[in-house]
């Protein structure tokens, strides 16, 4: 039964990874940019929420409300100022620029907040401790279920956005052929900026959940980034639903590894990632540039 519990916990964990990863997948799918600062942006979101909580004693979810628009604008601005230029100089430059950004964010966070580890578990109301007891060895935490639900909702929402709305269609068109997109009247730079804004906002939500389900510090970014990457790659680059599957596979791999020995948890995830990469498919879903 404990194995079943491990798998269930893994699926819930996978929900978090999928949520964390979907912004990364979107940016890569639309712009071919690998944002090496993505994990740090999630952590930044978490810290901004703590700033709000320092001033108002509210539930952490309420604190998200003012932070989200700030992050949306920041993402938009990031694309227009930095990443747009970086894109024009070739494939390598965005990688290097976002790496630099990652270092800047980490160290600015260190400067503004101490290196102490923090958590927002206490600000989630009773959510963090609530759970459904299914059997002796199997319980489902309310927080975990919520995260999975939010992940599915956001991924589904993004999918609908891309396939049903005009803005979403334009985003898909620009992803496939930015040159021709301009020729039919689509402002490609605006599309890119919107994609980055969405990616940053979803990272911020993921940051909130990271803070709730565990701890974070200024240097938590890279670890989250690796997990996000692994989720995206396992699921096949650029496919949104693939990211959900990838996240769940990663989560389950980690929890099963932890069952064997808590030290093996992260390692198990890495090994599954490498195995998937090495397999003929190179990813469970085929690699497609856009959904």
């Amino acid at each position, binding site marked *: 039964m404990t194995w079943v519990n491990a798998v269930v916990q893994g699926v819930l964990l996978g929900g978090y990874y999928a949520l964390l990863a979907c912004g990364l997948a979107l940016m890569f799918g639309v712009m071919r940019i690998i944002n090496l600062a993505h994990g740090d942006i999630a952590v930044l979101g978490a810290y901004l929420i703590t700033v709000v909580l320092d001033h108002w004693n509210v539930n952490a979810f309420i604190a998200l409300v003012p932070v989200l628009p700030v992050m949306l604008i920041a993402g938009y601005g990031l694309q227009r100022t930095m990443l747009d230029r970086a894109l024009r100089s070739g494939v390598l430059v965005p990688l290097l*620029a976002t*790496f*630099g950004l990652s270092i800047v964010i980490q160290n*600015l966070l260190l400067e503004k907040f101490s290196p102490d580890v923090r958590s927002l578990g206490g600000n989630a109301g009773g959510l963090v401790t609530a759970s459904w007891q299914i059997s002796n060895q199997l319980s489902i935490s309310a927080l975990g279920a919520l995260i999975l639900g939010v992940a599915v909702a956001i991924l589904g929402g993004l999918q609908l956005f891309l396939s049903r709305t005009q803005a979403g269609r334009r985003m898909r068109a620009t992803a496939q052929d930015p040159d021709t997109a301009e020729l039919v009247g689509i402002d490609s730079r605006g599309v890119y900026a919107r994609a980055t804004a969405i990616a940053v906002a979803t990272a911020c939500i993921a940051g909130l959940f990271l803070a709730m389900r565990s701890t974070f510090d200024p240097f938590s970014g890279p670890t989250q980034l690796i997990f996000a990457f692994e989720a995206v790659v396992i699921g096949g680059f650029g496919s949104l639903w693939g990211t959900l599957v990838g996240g769940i596979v990663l989560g389950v791999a980690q929890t099963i590894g932890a069952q064997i020995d808590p030290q093996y948890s992260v*390692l198990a995830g*890495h090994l599954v990632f490498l195995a998937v990469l*090495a397999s003929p498919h*190179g990813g469970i879903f085929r690699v497609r540039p856009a959904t």
Partner: protein
Amino acid sequence: MTAVPATTAAVRVQRWTRLSAGFTSGFGLFAVALAFVPVALSQTATQKLTTLLILVLMAAMWNALAGYGGLVSIGQQGFIGLGAYGTVWLCNHGMSPYRAMVVATLFCGAVSLPVSYLVLRFRAAQFAIAMWVLAEVAAILVSFDHSLGAGTGTSLIELNYYSPDARQSYTYWLTLGMTAFFLAVLFVLLRSRMGSSLQAIRDDEEAAASVGVRVVLGKRILFVLAAAGCGGAGAMTLANTLFIEPGSIFGVNFTAYMIFMVLVGGLGTFEGPILGAIVLFLIQNHWGSSGVWYLVGLGVGAILFALLLPRGLWGTLRDRYAIQLLPVGHFLRGARAAEEPA
């Protein structure tokens, strides 16, 4: 219609210019002169120069991968860590420390060969992340091993058999030798026929493949060379700083430094990484103790260079003035063909 004869003068292919010949010989003499540093300068100065040499080595290796092979790796710290911990392991099993460093370096090169069969199949994005994950896996596996100090770190106690002065001198000489060796190998490689192929791959992989360049072989050679070089840098870091732990020696910070040095110096040039290493060294020396702001500055610097001067200091200079000091390219010399009358 009458035929119009065109006159062409002979065109020569030239590899050296007077400037580059002069500079390269000067550089060689300079390298020999560097051997006298431990004798001539203080121990602190020697240690600092050792650090600089290690930076030069790391920058040159990352540039070999990314600048000439088009392989962006954010996981070279895996080999740095393997070189360092490999040295510890060999010493634990009775080898003398300096010999262990050399063997550990070779070991990193050897290990990278089978790895290359896996990772060189990947596209750019997957390759970059796969290298990082491999580095993390190496770090985790090392941290399991208690004989290697597990998570809390270890030092090379065998080095205590030497006096501090002697230890620093031997460390310096070995580092100088390694750096000179890897730079020389890279120089010869780039000047060879394989080297032209590599530069072709860097410029346009598909076009290169279509004229018969063996792209994968070229990349594999660079991959193994860079792995060995980074392994050497790791072993030397251990010798120079005496204490290592998995968190830092396998840290992605090293990649940050390598990217910075190569970006600032000039990606895909031979001289660039050396220049970038000197710049980073000077910054580290001057502001290294400023803590957070030093790293922020480094990050901002990387961003600014990426956006404004993507060819780096040397790359921009070279584009403007067509200089090569350590020549790995070719020049065409000779009169142009006379144009046909309109």
